[in-house]
């Protein structure tokens, strides 16, 4: 058995830098230098070096993905407006679901955060949280240093334990120096970014509970060893899976803003193209990525432009009425449906470079927003998408007749 030791000699600069705090956040493991050493038990066995550093593995480029426009659009809309509430991508095996999500990181824009802040907070959030603490000196926002980071994309593997998701006390610190230091989890890392769960329909129930809780409050609270940590955890939840492997809990389903479906492409030319690109990439990933750099940059620029345009996008009350009527006629409970359509249609209009939302925009996104919100009827033979189309046509027809 190969065992590796991660030495405790981590750079403690970040912890030392915040002596005023009762609890010093441990630096993220990813940046800690890993030292490999054999334990007494492992001495006999050959020692393999563990790559315990998180390398930024190359990913197949987003713009080189053929087809699956629905999924790509959903992701882009969520970058433009994270309040849309994430996307659930369900569909056939081997159709590039996780490839697409993992490719996302490269086209995401940069965001400002407080320098080295493990929670990716903005200056305002930082000042509010840290300045408000008992005994802490007031912080002058102008003195807080910031840096630009790419929007984080955090992968939540199925086997993650709750303490790694929520964060816990750094066991190493406790052992070596008897100090209780909070070690942030994946939720902290994903604040203001994307949290991705592949095979989301197979996620353990207790993790689903945690996610639902945090997604609803936007905060993560950890109580351990007599300390209490509370930090913002607002993330765009992205899940993918194959519906044949199992069902998703309805509460979790409801949390996703959009629901993209993905099916196998049955067009020979497209499939040949997919294979061609994949093989070219496999042969020399770096060269291939270089080849499509311009496309990637173009998309990134388009997204940034849409983000900037978004605040100016307006929507007529009449369109809002039509959206409400659509949701009513589909019998959708609650108001999350209307809200999601409204936000998504705004983002979609911005992406198209338009400042006014029309029913044409609504039409394009209604299926994505509502598909998973329809009440399930076991005997229903009509597809959810079709039903939405049909009701939409009715609403539009009535609208025209009234006009």
């Amino acid at each position, binding site marked *: 058995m190969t065992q590796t030791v*991660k030495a405790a000699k981590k750079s403690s600069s970040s912890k030392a830098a915040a002596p005023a705090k009762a609890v010093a956040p441990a630096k993220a493991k990813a940046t800690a230098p890993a030292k490999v050493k054999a334990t007494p038990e492992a001495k006999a066995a050959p020692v393999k070096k*563990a790559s315990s550093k998180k390398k930024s593995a190359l990913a197949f480029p987003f713009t080189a993905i053929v087809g699956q426009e629905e999924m790509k659009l959903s992701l882009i809309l969520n970058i433009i407006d994270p309040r849309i509430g994430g996307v659930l991508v369900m569909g056939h*095996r081997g159709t590039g679901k996780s490839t697409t999500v993992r490719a996302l990181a490269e086209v995401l824009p940069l965001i400002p955060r407080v320098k080295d802040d493990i929670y990716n907070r903005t200056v305002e959030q930082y000042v509010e949280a840290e300045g408000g603490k008992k005994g802490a000196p007031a912080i002058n926002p102008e003195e807080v240093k910031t840096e630009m980071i790419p929007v984080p994309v955090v992968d939540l593997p*199925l086997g993650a334990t709750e303490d*790694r998701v929520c964060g816990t006390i750094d066991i190493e610190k406790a052992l070596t120096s*008897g100090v209780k230091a909070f070690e942030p989890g994946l939720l902290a890392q994903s604040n203001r970014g994307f949290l991705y769960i592949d095979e989301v329909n197979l996620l353990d129930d207790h993790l689903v509970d945690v996610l639902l809780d945090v997604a609803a409050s936007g905060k993560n609270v950890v109580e351990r060893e007599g300390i209490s940590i509370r930090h913002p955890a607002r993330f765009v939840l992205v899940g993918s899976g194959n519906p*044949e492997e*199992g*069902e998703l809990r309805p509460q979790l389903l409801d949390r996703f803003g959009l629901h993209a479906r993905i099916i196998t492409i049955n067009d020979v030319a497209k499939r040949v193209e997919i294979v061609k690109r994949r093989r070219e990439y496999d042969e020399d990933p770096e060269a291939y990525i270089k080849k499509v750099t311009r496309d990637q940059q173009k998309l990134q620029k388009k997204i940034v432009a849409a983000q900037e345009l978004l605040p100016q996008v307006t929507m007529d009350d009449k369109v809002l009425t039509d959206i409400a009527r659509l949701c009513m006629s589909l019998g959708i409970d609650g108001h999350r449906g209307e809200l999601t359509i409204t936000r998504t249609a705004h983002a979609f209009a911005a992406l198209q470079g338009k400042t006014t939302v029309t029913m044409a925009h609504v039409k394009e996104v209604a299926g994505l927003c509502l598909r998973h919100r329809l009440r399930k009827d076991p005997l229903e*033979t009509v597809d959810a998408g079709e039903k939405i189309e049909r009701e939409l046509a009715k609403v539009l027809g009535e609208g025209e007749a009234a006009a």
Partner: protein
Amino acid sequence: MIAFTDIVGMDLAKQALMLLAVDPSLGGVVIPSAVGSGKSTLARAFADILPEGTPFVELPLNVTEDRLIGGVDLEATLATGQRVVQHGVLSRAHKGVLYVDSLSLLDSSAVSHVMDAMSRGVVLVEREGLSEVHPADFMLVGTYDPSDGEVRMGLLDRIGIIVPFATQNDYRARKKIVSVVLGERYSEDTQDELRMLRGLIEAAREQLSHVSMTKEQIKGLIQTAISLGVEGNRVDIFTIRCAIASAALAQRTEVDDEDLKLAVKLVLVPRATRMPEREATEEEMQAPDEAPPEEEAPETEDENAPPDEPDADADEEQEETPDMIEELMMDAMETELPDNILNISLASKKKAKSGSRGEALNNRRGRFVRAQEGEMKSGKVALIPTLISAAPWQKTRKADKAKKGIKTGALVINKEDVKIKKFRDKSGTLFIFMVDASGSMALNRMRQAKGAVASLLQNAYVHRDQVALISFRGKQAQVLLPPSQSVDRAKRELDVLPTGGGTPLASALITAWETAKQARTKGITQIMFVLITDGRGNIPLAAAYEPNAEKAPKEELEKEIEAIALTIQADGVASIVVDTQMNYLSRGEAPKLAQKLGGRYFYLPNAKAEQIVEAALS
């Protein structure tokens, strides 16, 4: 140990393993085969043909999560005062082989982790305060006996090669096997042969990048994949890699017809979801008819060929693909396609032997997977993990308490240290629906069953319930839906269902009982049969294999059904019988059947789906 070259028979499996050795990016090889066929011997001998020092790690079926993924070795951590990381099984197989015997019995959460590692090439360890990435780029070699159940499709999708189900070796081969088993191991000849084989594979690996493939060949393979209804794009890539590896193994620089045929046989055919037709019309070639209508949401249409011009498209493709290649594909498929292709069966549905194996595995039910935080009263306390999790804090806790002037004992254990044993709970119920699809009332019964199945599945995630569906008509019963939690899958299976014909009730009961036994080997112990029928069986078991047996005397039929029903009752399976026969026609068969099964009887001639669900849950 028997050497790779000494194994007799299973040529296709051997060939598959050699291709994998040449190109490990094929992901792996799955070998379905009956008990005692030597499949695991072969798999273990695979190490012989790999370069020396290649890791070969066997994944035990009862693996715990932390062993699989890796994590903090708490004992060593405590002993050394430094964090000791233990790599999991997945990572130890890096650049080597991960071998799973009885792949279909692997726990579903373990399967998920294997799948995840295979698609990333690494294991993300986010456990117990540890956040690391361990490399885990391995070849998966799995063997299993199809009578133990299916391997999850998601996992198969990440494994390049699926060897067609191997039947027993012939007499001569068997004799040779015995002599090899008894004979000298690793004789000099064997060593030489192995060395040669390794050299061959080494050379093929180098040849790999020099093999070229024409665009027509690639197109031909993809066309074949589409006409077989193979899902996803990942398989396309595996097919191409397989053809290239085959050419490389033969030291060729160009892929030829034999390579293509082999790729179709090993990669595509085992995943076929439909039978291709030689004279396929354009529409058939183009229309994804395996996809249920609900998957073709209008929004997704633009990614496929526009609906109004598939014909033109297909024509074009056919012109571009030389006839020769298409012919070739058809040849390869026709010779290899199993009769019942829609069962995706890698395998003939062998009857599970009743008895020992199922029983033994039954005891694994509620297998301990990990220790998890929890309330002391909510489960069994995992003592050692609790103590271990309390240990690191002793210093600080004692200091804290001392500050407050509280005396402490040897150990300070807080509520949050308590770890509860988490078992893989399969505590849900498996509902096996048997629906009489014979006769004129069949349509109505099917509708009821569909509704009941779907609405049970709506709540399946809550109780971890599963549903299986068996329809019976004609000569024998058929499993339409193996135990599943998926509404989508259930719908897909139920949407196309033939009705009419005789009533093979005995066959239905036997089929259901077999399904139940299979489920038990996977840890599901609560099983309920829901039988929707008028209880009037008129086709004996023998009819399935002997056409003349169809007309049997009524008494014999009754005896047969009674015997099966009593056995099922004795086996402890709960049943309900939903009688759909109109009152004036009933001759009391259904209540009698319920009695023999020891189950409850419901008379619901116009039952609604909800009533059946209520009856099943009551």
